[in-house]
């Protein structure tokens, strides 16, 4: 496994202003590695949407990234409330975000659809009361 790079980020709970730091840091690293800018952008957007969700819908969490010559894999894991109906949550426009989140510019119900759109593989597992894990892969 000499050609793979692992990175790990903690996403703090309840800190809206710091949300996005992990995605920003990954984006800078990928740029430095010389990854194609279009791919960097897809990874950055997908991870940023996931990171924001971890802050506004859960209590922060952990993001593990594996970069290999073939793909970039992101695993976003939180111990938040979980999602009861994943199919519904995946629908464009569906959001449970309260007004105070909407006033901050989030809660359009577009995050999960965007994450799916920008990744080549997308998987979400969630258990109510336990947490949510989103796995995304973007091919190089």
């Amino acid at each position, binding site marked *: 496994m000499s050609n793979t790079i692992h990175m790990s980020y903690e996403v703090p709970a309840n800190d809206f202003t710091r949300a996005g730091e992990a995605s920003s840091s990954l984006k800078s690293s990928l740029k430095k590695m010389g990854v194609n800018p279009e791919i960097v952008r897809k990874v950055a957007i997908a991870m940023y949407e996931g990171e924001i969700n971890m802050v506004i819908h859960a209590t922060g969490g952990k993001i593990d990234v594996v970069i290999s010559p073939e793909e970039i894999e992101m695993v976003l894991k939180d111990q938040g409330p979980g999602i009861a109906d994943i199919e519904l949550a995946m629908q464009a426009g569906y959001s449970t975000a309260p007004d105070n989140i909407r006033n901050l510019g989030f809660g359009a119900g*577009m995050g999960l659809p965007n994450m799916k759109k920008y990744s080549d593989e997308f998987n979400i597992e969630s258990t109510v009361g336990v947490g949510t894990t989103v796995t995304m892969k973007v091919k190089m």
Partner: protein
Amino acid sequence: MNIEDIRSILGAKYIVGEEWKEREVHTACGSDMMSDVLAFMKDQSVLMTGLCNLQVIRTCEMMDIICVVFVRGKLPDEAMIEMAKEKEIALLSTGHRMFAACGMLYEKGLRGGPDYK
């Protein structure tokens, strides 16, 4: 058109990035919802928004958006200005409201991205 053309059409002022005024802008997006903006992927865009918080700058960073125009006279705070400088995102402020500001740029030939699918 370039960033300076946008500033002049909107009668806007520079908050950050007068030194990048020659940079070309190809498309525009107007929204106060960041995931709406994130659904749109285009090179060298300008974002028109009435939202004024740090996540606006973060969103632009992720999208490689090169310029933000705050409408309704909104002004970014110090933290936003610092981040914009670091990420080389020009920040402008205009007194026009969203509809009028977008219309003025559209009239001069600037267009949005494709429809959402």
